[in-house]
Structures are given as structure tokens and as C-alpha cells.
């Protein structure tokens, strides 16, 4: 698919920006550089390409409250990734790994301008190269989520949500309700609430299905299955579609992916349910060796499960599991069992496998 727009448009500033509040500040107020010359090389000497990488300095003067919250958010700090990697590397090796984290993983963090001014450099699904400014450098209060959110989260979530992957049904919230990312993930969540959560599951303002579907709460539902299972099963166990699982990653080489649909045991204290849909993440001991120069950098791989609770963006109102009890109770293949595990994988996966439920007698089906 050809990229949208001509390459030069990535750098084209619209006249409308020049008369806007931000435009009146002048280019060098944020970007520095040498405005007195027309020689491109000389003009860009000392240029600050992403001024909001220092949000307090670039944006905090006028947007102090939101900037202060944002600098603690996961979007800006990438703290969730950092904590995940630290657990895999261990305290001793972290000092030798931190630079790799900062150079590679943390480069994914988002600044104010990355969403409100710029476009991500590319999105693989559909494969469209974007990058550059969003709208002639105008500051966009509500960015187009398919470009900004989708540009970074397209490897899995956005493509699942929109049905771009073959074999994945698009999410019912997308197909029936035309909802976008920000319909559930509010600005308060995306900008942070001022706290410093350890990872995305610990975010206090994260969405919950019950926010919009309170009548599905266990004990309050007219559906028997909700009342029986709602305390122990995550909604996605019955309403989630397949999720994209990845295997055998070596920081870019040899990774494969396929849709999986497995129910496993939750070990994350931030999730209140006992059982949830699981997704395999492609962690291997040597995954970031190329970046660290060490051998088997992730020494704690056997302490952290590589099957993790999934947050499917393939939700369906009706699935085979929501329709009949048999679909789960007489279908052991739906459950993550020891036989599903790769013996060369993380030994911690043993903690998330689960025995299938006992088959129901015919009278109760």
C-alpha cells in the first residue's frame, strides 16, 4: 500500500498553524536551530526535533498541571516495560542492561507532541508509512486514534480491534458501536492521573467492562452465567475472540505469531479474576543479547511466565462460549494445560496452566 501523502508533506507547515496560539510562539522557541540562514544544513544546527521530550520545559509553562501528570504516566516513562525487563534481568545485571533499555525499549515512549502534533513513523497493519506532522503542525486536541494510537499499537491491539488480521474477528465495539480507542481509554488514563503505576494493569483509571455494562455484574445480572462465573472469570473468557500470540523472539529474528484462544490461571494481583484468556509473549533468554553484548541477558526467564493474561481487543457479544456451557465444560482444548507448554520455555508457565473443568452431566447442559 502506498504511503499516504507525499514525503514533503511530513515537514510542511500550514499557514493556519502560523496564526494559531502555538504558531505565534515562533519556531525557535521550541525547536531552537539557526533561523537566520536559509542553508538547510546550517539552519538545522542545534535543532530540537522533539521539544516535548522535555515536557516540563516545552509544555509545562502553559500546561503545567497536565504535563506534571503526564511525566509520571506509562506513556512517557515506559515504566511498565522497564519493570518487566528488570524482573527478567535481575538486580545485578540491570546496571549492564539499563543502556539497552534506554536506547531500544524506552525509545517507544510518547511525548506530548508525538500524539498532538506528529504521526508515528509507520504502521505495519495496514502497512502505511506516515511520520512527520499530523496536520500542518497544528496542535490537534483530539488526535485521530487510528493514526496516533494505531501507529504505535498496531503490532497487535489496533489490528485485532479493527479486524485487520486474517482469522481475527473485529471487536464488536468497533463494528457495531464504531467506538475508537478513546471511547474506553480516556484522556485521564492516557495522560496519567499523577500516580506512578508499575505497569498498565496497575493504572487506576484503566477501563473496565462494567463501566458501561453494570447490569452484567455478578449478582446483578439477569443472565445466570454472569452470576455464576462473574467473580472468577474475566469477561473475556467468554466474550473474547482469539488473540495474537508470539513465539521465539530474538530481538527481531525468528519470531512467529499465530492466533490462540486459551484460558489460564491469572497470577497478576492487579486482576481480580482467577481465570482469564492468555497470550504468549515471545521472551527468550538471549532476546536482547545483541543490544547488551551479554550472553543470555534475561537470566530470570524461568521465574516469569511467558503465558500472560491477555486483554483481547476482539470482544464479541456472542461466542460459542457465551452460548452454551458445553463449549467450555466439555472442551478441554480450550484450557492451557501442561501439554500446551514448550518444555524449553519458561518454567514459570507451570503456574498459569489449569485443569479443564469437570464435564457437566447431560441434564445441566
Amino acid at each position, binding site marked *: 500500500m502506498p*504511503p499516504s501523502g*507525499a*514525503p*514533503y508533506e*511530513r*515537514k*510542511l*507547515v*500550514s*499557514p493556519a498553524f*502560523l*496564526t494559531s496560539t502555538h*504558531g*505565534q*510562539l*515562533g*519556531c*525557535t*522557541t521550541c*525547536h531552537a*536551530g*539557526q*533561523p*537566520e*540562514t*536559509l542553508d*538547510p544544513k546550517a*539552519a538545522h544546527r542545534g535543532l530540537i526535533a522533539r521539544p516535548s521530550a522535555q515536557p516540563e520545559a516545552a509544555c509545562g509553562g502553559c500546561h503545567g498541571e497536565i504535563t506534571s501528570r503526564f511525566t509520571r504516566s506509562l506513556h512517557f516513562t515506559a515504566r511498565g516495560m522497564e519493570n518487566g525487563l528488570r524482573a527478567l534481568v535481575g538486580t545485578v545485571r540491570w546496571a549492564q542492561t539499563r543502556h539497552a533499555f534506554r536506547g531500544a525499549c524506552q525509545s517507544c515512549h510518547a511525548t506530548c507532541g508525538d500524539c498532538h502534533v506528529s504521526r508515528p*513513523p*509507520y504502521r*505495519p497493519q495496514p*502497512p502505511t*508509512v506516515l*511520520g512527520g506532522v499530523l496536520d500542518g503542525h497544528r496542535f490537534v486536541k483530539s488526535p485521530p486514534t487510528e493514526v496516533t494510537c494505531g501507529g504505535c499499537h498496531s*503490532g497487535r491491539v489496533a489490528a485485532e480491534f479493527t479486524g485487520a488480521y486474517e482469522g481475527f474477528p473485529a471487536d464488536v465495539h468497533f463494528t457495531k458501536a464504531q467506538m475508537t480507542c478513546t471511547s474506553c481509554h480516556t484522556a485521564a488514563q492516557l495522560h496519567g492521573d499523577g500516580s506512578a503505576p508499575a505497569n498498565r494493569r496497575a493504572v487506576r483509571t484503566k477501563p473496565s467492562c462494567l463501566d458501561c455494562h453494570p447490569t452484567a455484574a455478578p449478582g446483578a445480572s439477569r443472565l445466570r452465567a454472569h452470576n455464576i462465573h462473574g467473580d472468577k472469570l474475566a469477561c473475556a473468557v467468554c466474550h473474547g475472540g482469539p488473540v495474537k500470540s508470539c513465539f521465539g523472539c530474538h530481538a*527481531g*529474528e*525468528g*519470531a*512467529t505469531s499465530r492466533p490462540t484462544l486459551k484460558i489460564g490461571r491469572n497470577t497478576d494481583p492487579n486482576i481480580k479474576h482467577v481465570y482469564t484468556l492468555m497470550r504468549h509473549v515471545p521472551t527468550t533468554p538471549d532476546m536482547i543479547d545483541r543490544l547488551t553484548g551479554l550472553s543470555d541477558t534475561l537470566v530470570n526467564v524461568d521465574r516469569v511466565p511467558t503465558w500472560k493474561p491477555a486483554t483481547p481487543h476482539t470482544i464479541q457479544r456472542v461466542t460459542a462460549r457465551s452460548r452454551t456451557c458445553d463449549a467450555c465444560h466439555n472442551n478441554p482444548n480450550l484450557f492451557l494445560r501442561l501439554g500446551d507448554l514448550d518444555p524449553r520455555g519458561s518454567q514459570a508457565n507451570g503456574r498459569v496452566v489449569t485443569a479443564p473443568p469437570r464435564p457437566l452431566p447431560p441434564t445441566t447442559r
Partner: protein
Amino acid sequence: MMTGGDVQVVSRIRRAGLLTALFGAVVFLAFSLGLAAPPAPCGPARSGCIACHTERSMLEPLVQPFPALPAEGEG
């Protein structure tokens, strides 16, 4: 024939004209030198940045083509 009073009036008019001209010259110079422009170092109306970044003809030969997409399994 002008009286002494008339001479004084004309003299005042000439002085006022000179002062006005002097003030105008100072203002003109201030604007010309940029002293009366907004304090921002790169005001939109006179920025070298904008000379290029608002003109397709200036940008087109300079901006690189889109980068190649990563292959499946990369990135």
C-alpha cells in the same frame, strides 16, 4: 508683512514639524532594525524556518522518500 507674533507662530510650527519627522525616523529605524518586532527570536512573520517549511517547492527536493517498511517479524 509678518509681525513679530506671526514669526513666533511659524517658528513653533517648524519646530513641531521637525520633532514629528525626527520621531517618525526613530520609529522607522526601530522597525527596520527589528527593535520593535515581537521578542520571540523566530517570530512567524519573519522566520527563516518558515521560508522553507511553508513552501512545497523548497521542501520537495530536500525531504527524503518514505523509509522502507520493516519485514515481517521485524520491529
